[in-house]
């Protein structure tokens, strides 16, 4: 397997032999790739990257379903190789706020199918006899947690892939050759290897390698401080590498991990210390390893004090010294998630970067599935490298976000928490006007989008009665939220509202083969008349969701695809990567050049008719069609459709004329009391009442359109991605069906009204988490208040025995159970079920 000669060509080259590179090689070999080269600049088994200094523990429970499932799958793989020790793990709380957060941990554990329970300080002490219980208020026990040996696991994976793999350590990549937009070869100091596909798994060196091909992998090396203290006499009586749970001292952002007679004390508490990749020592120059520079001692002082205080009995052992101390370098990304998938602009080049040992085996497997069959068992959309495409790749941005995000690693992060740094970055033509109206901006895909407008505060008083019972008193529930959203919603339903810019991804497809191409890409029939729009799922071959979006036909050989801003980069990569070599199809990205203004509500037609040169009547501009219109002298293009369930249009105008469009519509709307309203209405309250699904929440690879209630297209004759699985899913009975539920009683045991925010487990009458026959658990995919229906709404997939309208269930939120009722099974809107408003 190890070879002195580097082959001159290979099917697949993997750059980086840390745990994820090894895992990718192994799984690719397992899936049939038989000509793989795995290279690393460093020696084996420890080439000097982050894998070599990881503290090697895996805590499976996270608030992210994707990361929890990846960690669980990684534990299974380590365990199968006999490289896992199930030590358990405990997160301890020093503050009341953290106790609440640990209850949310229990909630996530239940939602994602992990063991997890809340412990009293005394119960923590039973597991960790050396902990200072005076300091802690509670613990979260993760029974499934444990430790692994990623270096040895990497060796085993290489051995298993032996027949398909050439391993080439001590091989420095000097350049990547790109020809006609595709990866062609990897040039190294030991020769050049031609390759069909190349995966960059080089950890914190990945950006440097990617730059050789002219593309970005946005991550920065950052310091994670770690010391090892021993020998500790307390541990001498126990056998094995680890015999007590790993403790995460969440409020000090530290962990204590027993290892033999030592205790490893790691910290994310210190000030963020970010490195430039060029400052990192080469492996020859490094006394220990390039990623293990010496401890910055002053930054670690507080961590020493805090850990001594928490575990004096072991850490204050007079015979125990600090035997090892490093500023361990690891990869930090702008949002903390890994960077996975095909790098657009260079076909055949993949990123498998910013991966921690706790998820690496599963990510290697999932990316191997993605590379070999186009989709993975565990949906990786939140880690898609293309999510930062065209906005979030500058060095400055990456550093700012990494700096900010560093504090969140053990932080209490609200699901709606917004980033503060590098803002505003992407602003639409409406930004200045919105800012003048005191918009509360949220960010999506880099775009600044108003979530609500403080200038609409009067609407809370106007709709005082309607909002009774829907206002959130609890600080956590109302964080990053405002009752103004509900007021804006009701105003839109009664009058008219303008919403924009949504930060959409807007892609035009032109060319002589575009009709066939588009037909192949989506579920809905796209061979429609010019001027028609089609809302459609986009599926992987397993019938799971890759996206859902709107396709409009602008001409015989011209389509426009409009998709969500946060997934614009990934969708673009998906569409671009599926244009055949000999197909005449060109993708033109209009996302930055067109702005979008939605005008919706009963008075929308009156407002627009005043300023549009065209006839906006129902007959002249029917629902679900698109036309060019001129609004106040601005040449625009509009689609008559709505994500909020109202009569109205999405108007697309050149970005440079957007402010004029805004002003013209606002002025025309004055007599109708038109209000700019935020994405809180567009993305949550409006869509929840209408039962509209959102990609990444309801729609993902694990669920089919049949389960999501999106089979209105039927099965068209033409072939398309995922057709077979889609047709089968329609034939078969649903294992689960997406339902809309409402909360019957909000009052907690402390008498406070609580409002779920999403990702909470759904329980049956007995309090057991509901699981479908495929093992998928029922949880709240989206939560939001429906002010017109007067209820707090939840969406969740439910197996047939529970998917019955009127059926009573429970939802667990912050440690308590609340009764809920199934309102709708399937996609029928709760509000205006016949869509009379949209069609009015």
């Amino acid at each position, binding site marked *: 397997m190890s070879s002195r000669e580097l082959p001159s060509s290979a099917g697949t080259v993997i750059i980086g032999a840390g745990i994820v590179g090894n895992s990718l090689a192994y799984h690719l070999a397992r899936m049939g790739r038989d000509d793989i080269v795995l290279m690393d600049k460093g020696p084996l088994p420890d080439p000097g990257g982050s894998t070599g200094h990881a503290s090697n523990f895996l805590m499976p429970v996270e608030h992210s379903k994707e990361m929890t499932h990846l960690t669980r799958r990684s534990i299974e793989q380590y365990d199968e190789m006999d490289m896992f020790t199930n030590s358990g793990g405990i997160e301890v709380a020093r503050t009341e706020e953290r106790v609440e957060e640990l209850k949310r941990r229990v909630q996530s554990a239940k939602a994602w199918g992990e063991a997890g329970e809340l412990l009293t300080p005394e119960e923590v002490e039973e597991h960790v006899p050396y902990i200072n219980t005076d300091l802690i208020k509670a613990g979260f026990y993760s029974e499934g947690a444990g430790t692994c040996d990623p270096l040895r696991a990497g060796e085993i994976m290489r051995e298993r892939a032996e027949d398909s793999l050439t391993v080439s350590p001590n091989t420095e990549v000097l350049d990547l050759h790109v020809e006609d937009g595709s990866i062609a070869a990897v040039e190294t100091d030991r020769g050049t290897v031609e390759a069909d596909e190349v995966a960059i798994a080089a950890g914190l060196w990945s950006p440097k390698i990617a730059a050789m091909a002219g593309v970005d992998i946005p991550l920065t090396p950052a310091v994670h401080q770690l010391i090892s*203290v021993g020998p500790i006499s307390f541990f001498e009586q126990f056998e094995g590498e680890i015999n007590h749970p790993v403790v995460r001292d969440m409020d000090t952002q530290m962990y204590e991990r027993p290892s033999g007679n030592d205790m490893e004390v790691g910290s994310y508490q210190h000030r963020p210390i970010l490195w430039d990749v060029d400052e990192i020592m080469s492996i020859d*120059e*490094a*006394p*220990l390893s390039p990623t293990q520079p*010496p401890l910055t*001692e002053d930054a670690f002082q507080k961590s020493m004090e805090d850990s001594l205080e928490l575990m004096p009995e072991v*850490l*204050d052992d007079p015979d125990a*010294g600090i035997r090892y101390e490093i500023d361990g370098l690891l990869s930090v990304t702008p949002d903390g998630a890994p960077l996975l998938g095909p790098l657009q602009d260079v076909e055949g080049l993949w990123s498998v970067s910013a991966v921690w040992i706790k998820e690496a085996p599963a990510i290697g497997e999932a990316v191997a599935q993605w590379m070999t069959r186009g989709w993975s068992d565990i949906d990786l959309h939140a880690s898609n490298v293309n999510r930062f495409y065209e906005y979030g790749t500058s060095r400055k941005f990456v550093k700012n976000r990494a700096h900010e995000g560093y504090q969140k690693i053990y932080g209490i992060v609200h699901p709606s928490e917004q980033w503060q740094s590098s803002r505003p970055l992407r602003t639409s033509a409406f930004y200045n006007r919105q800012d003048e109206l005191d918009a509360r901006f949220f960010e999506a895909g880099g775009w600044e989008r108003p979530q609500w407008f403080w200038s609409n505060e009067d609407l809370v008083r106007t709709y005082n009665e309607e909002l009774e019972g829907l206002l959130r008193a609890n600080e956590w529930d109302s964080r990053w939220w405002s009752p103004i959203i509900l007021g804006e919603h009701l105003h839109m339903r009664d009058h008219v509202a303008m919403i924009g810019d949504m930060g959409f991804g807007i892609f035009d497809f032109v060319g002589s083969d575009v009709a066939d191409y588009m037909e192949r890409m989506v579920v809905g029939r796209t061979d429609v008349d010019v001027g028609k729009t089609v809302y459609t799922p986009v599926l992987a071959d397993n019938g799971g969701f890759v996206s859902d979006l709107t396709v409009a036909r602008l001409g015989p050989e011209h389509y426009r695809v409009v998709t969500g801003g946060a997934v614009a980069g990934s969708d673009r990569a998906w569409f671009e990567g599926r244009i055949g070599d000999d197909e005449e199809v060109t993708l033109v990205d209009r996302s930055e050049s067109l702005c979008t203004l939605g005008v919706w509500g009963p008075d929308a037609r009156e407002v627009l008719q005043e300023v549009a040169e065209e006839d906006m009547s129902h007959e002249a501009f029917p629902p679900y069609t698109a036309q060019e219109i001129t609004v106040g002298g601005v040449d625009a293009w509009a689609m008559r459709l709505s994500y909020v369930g109202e009569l109205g249009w999405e108007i697309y105008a050149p970005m440079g004329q957007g402010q004029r469009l805004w002003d013209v519509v606002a002025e025309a709307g004055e007599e109708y009391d038109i209000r700019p309203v935020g994405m809180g209405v567009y993305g949550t309250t409006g869509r929840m009442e209408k039962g509209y699904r959102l990609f990444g929440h309801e729609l993902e690879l694990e669920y089919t359109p049949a389960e999501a209630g999106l089979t209105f297209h039927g099965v068209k004759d033409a072939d398309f991605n995922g057709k077979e699985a889609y047709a089968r899913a329609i034939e078969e009975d649903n294992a689960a069906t997406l339902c809309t539920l409402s909360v019957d009683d909000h009052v907690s045991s402390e008498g406070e009204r609580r409002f779920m925010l999403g990702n909470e487990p759904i329980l049956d009458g007995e309090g057991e988490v509901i699981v479908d026959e495929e093992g998928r658990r029922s949880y709240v995919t989206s939560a939001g208040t429906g002010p017109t229906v007067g209820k707090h709404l939840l969406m969740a997939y439910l197996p047939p025995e529970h998917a019955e309208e009127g059926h009573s269930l429970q939802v667990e939120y912050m440690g308590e159970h609340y009764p809920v009722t199934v309102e709708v099974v399937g996609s029928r809107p709760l509000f205006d079920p016949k869509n009379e408003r949209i069609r009015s």
Partner: protein
Amino acid sequence: MEALACIKRVPDTGAKIPLTDDQQSIDTTTLGFTVSPHEECAVEEAVQQVETHGGSTTALTLGPEEASEQLYTAIARGADEGVLLEAGDEEWRPTATARAIADAIEELERKFDLLLFGNESADTENYQVGPRVANELDVPCVTGIKDLEVTDGSAVAKREVTGGSEVYEVPLPAVVAVKEGINSPRYPSMRSRMRAKRQELTRMDPERVDGPTFERIRLEAPETDEGAAEVLGEGPEAAPAVVDVLEDIGVL
């Protein structure tokens, strides 16, 4: 007994030593700093002797402000006090260093019985400072010491020579330059590390008196072996490959 351990802040380098562009010094941009293993042993020896005989240990260094880091480490490893001779960023040659240390020793209130040095520094390896300090102070000096026993007013020091060892008895005060192996230096405990940081150092402003000196033309990093270890095979099947390599390098 009063013990003194003299240490020197040096870059902690790996296999390949990066040099500055002008080749006048080591490029320490990305490097950490340490003291030589001999000096770690000097500190440990001082601490152990004081543990046995009572008294106190003083760690002393001459160097830039940053050298205080090495003093704190010595304190964390058991020294009671630290003395920094503030010499600025420029490197001092052995003559000037030894004179400044000797001056400081005479100036300090504490009178030392045992003056411990590392046998040589890890970077310049001049082997001079210990003996020169002894000469300045007119006290006996033994070097290359790997075993030391202190009795009342004198010390028995042993050093290894080819085929055996030499044992000296020196009256105290004396300079003893020790080598790695004389003891196993302890790792500082967390608490001692924290305490060390809070300790005040004695700072002195030494007078630099250079002796006859020389000019450094340039530093050259030795050629490093670019080739890395390679597994040629396992068991008897590996033999032909081994023979090939031996022939390649001209051994056979």
